[in-house]
């Protein structure tokens, strides 16, 4: 099965064709804002940290390069200030080597100060946008698709309606040779044996157990005696009985296929196919950045409370777990793309909902805008992981 995408120099396929302006560290964020003000159509991406927080450096470099190499991006304007740990022009070269995309990097302290840098970036951004406009969609096999899954602002129905629907989509993508990412490891606690049994090899099973056990230790360290409240009283009132039940509802987003590998946060997906676990926290903006950095072109995001979050350069499909929230947030044409609550309130079968979600995914791959894209709710945040497990 094919979708219509933008074939990039390295053979990867984008479903969007963005030009981004991104900061090499948070000290360059103001410059990115100035460029974005002058160049409509460019996507500004803000760095949320400085440069020298111990223990974060390698991860930030990996994620910055990963984010900029995502095939949804045609070209990159990268701005550093100069005194940060990583050299923006070196990073620019690495992005170009990995993606083959045009990268224009500037360093304020080397290139004449802020105003000339901003001027040059504006000029280059306009050039890149003009070039990007001449790109055309071409047929590409579904095996080129990487789907990232996420849940946020969950409620008692998330695991019953919305997450199984995403799971249906995940199974469809895997059956067609594509790749699906499951993450939010804190929410897998209690399911390590279930997930390990689904591993492709004993080595993958070991990795799965290792990352979930490490996460459980971290959670206990952070929450201490409160750790058992990872399943909260509200969860219990909503019908969730055990941590395993809650976790099974979360991991259902990945569907039922074999787990082929485990990735570090934001690690390049490379040639991996099938269902892959990405190590990462449940915090949504951090998690979405990690998924995008691995190479996910599209995100499927379930919410019960109605979290409207999108992502700057990837369509994020919002699936609402219940009709009450769906209609409270505007119903059809409102803040959510799909109402999974119809399974409960309208007698829609879970399978019919799953099929509807697959159709929606394919339309989005071919260019249909998701609600966060239409409403400009992608934001500019590119939250690189800090050392937090939750």
């Amino acid at each position, binding site marked *: 099965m094919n979708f219509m995408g933008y074939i990039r120099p390295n053979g990867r396929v984008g479903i969007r064709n963005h030009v981004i302006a991104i900061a090499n560290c948070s000290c360059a964020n103001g410059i990115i804002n100035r460029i974005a003000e002058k160049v409509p159509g460019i996507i500004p991406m803000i760095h949320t940290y400085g440069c020298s927080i111990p223990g974060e450096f390698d991860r930030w470099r990996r994620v910055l390069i990963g984010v900029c190499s995502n095939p949804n991006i045609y070209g990159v304007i990268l701005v550093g200030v100069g005194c940060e740990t990583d050299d923006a022009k070196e990073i620019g070269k690495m992005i170009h080597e990995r993606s083959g995309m045009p990268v224009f990097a500037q360093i304020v302290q080397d290139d004449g100060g802020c105003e000339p840098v901003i001027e040059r970036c504006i000029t280059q951004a306009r050039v890149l946008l003009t070039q990007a406009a001449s790109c055309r969609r071409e047929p590409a096999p579904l095996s080129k698709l990487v789907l990232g899954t996420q849940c946020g602002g969950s409620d008692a129905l998330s695991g019953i309606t919305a997450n199984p629907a995403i799971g249906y989509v995940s199974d469809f993508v895997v059956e067609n040779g594509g790749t699906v990412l499951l993450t939010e490891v804190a929410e897998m606690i*209690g399911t390590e044996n279930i997930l390990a049994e689904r591993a492709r090899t004993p080595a993958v099973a070991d990795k799965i157990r290792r990352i979930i056990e490490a996460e459980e230790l971290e959670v206990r360290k952070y929450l201490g005696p409160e*750790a058992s409240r990872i399943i909260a009283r509200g969860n219990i009132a909503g*019908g969730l009985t*055990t941590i*395993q*039940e809650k976790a099974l509802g979360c991991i*259902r987003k990945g569907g039922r296929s074999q787990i082929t590998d485990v990735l570090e946060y934001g690690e390049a997906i490379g040639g991996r196919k099938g269902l892959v676990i990405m190590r990462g926290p449940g915090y949504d903006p951090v998690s979405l950045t990690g998924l995008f950095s691995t190479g996910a072109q599209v995100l499927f995001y379930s919410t019960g409370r109605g979290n409207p979050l999108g992502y700057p350069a990837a369509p994020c499909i919002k699936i609402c777990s219940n009709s009450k929230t769906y209609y409270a947030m505007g119903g059809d044409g409102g803040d959510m793309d799909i109402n999974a609550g119809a*399974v*409960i309130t309208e007698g829609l079968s879970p399978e019919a909902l799953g099929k509807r979600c697959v159709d929606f995914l394919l339309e989005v791959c071919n260019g249909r805008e998701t609600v966060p894209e239409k409403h400009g709710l992608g934001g500019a945040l590119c939250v690189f992981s800090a050392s937090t497990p939750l």
Partner: protein
Amino acid sequence: MKRGIIIDPRDNVGIVCENVLAGETVDFAGLNIKALEDIELPHKIALRDIGLGDLVVKYGGTIGYATAPIKKGAHVHVHNVDSEQMMK
């Protein structure tokens, strides 16, 4: 008749899609289960008898074990199911 859903064919519990009163029948796409007690949306109902210590299965996976015998049609929750991890 009230409606319910079974998430995975391996499950021995189902979800009620609306609040159910004791004595009412819940239809799981053709499988009819009579509720033995009041069960709120979206809580779990036993699809068959579950013995003391038997595994309780939802999503095709084990969510815990029965801490008491559970009759078909009974409410399944913290009063009759537990797991050993992070709950105690």
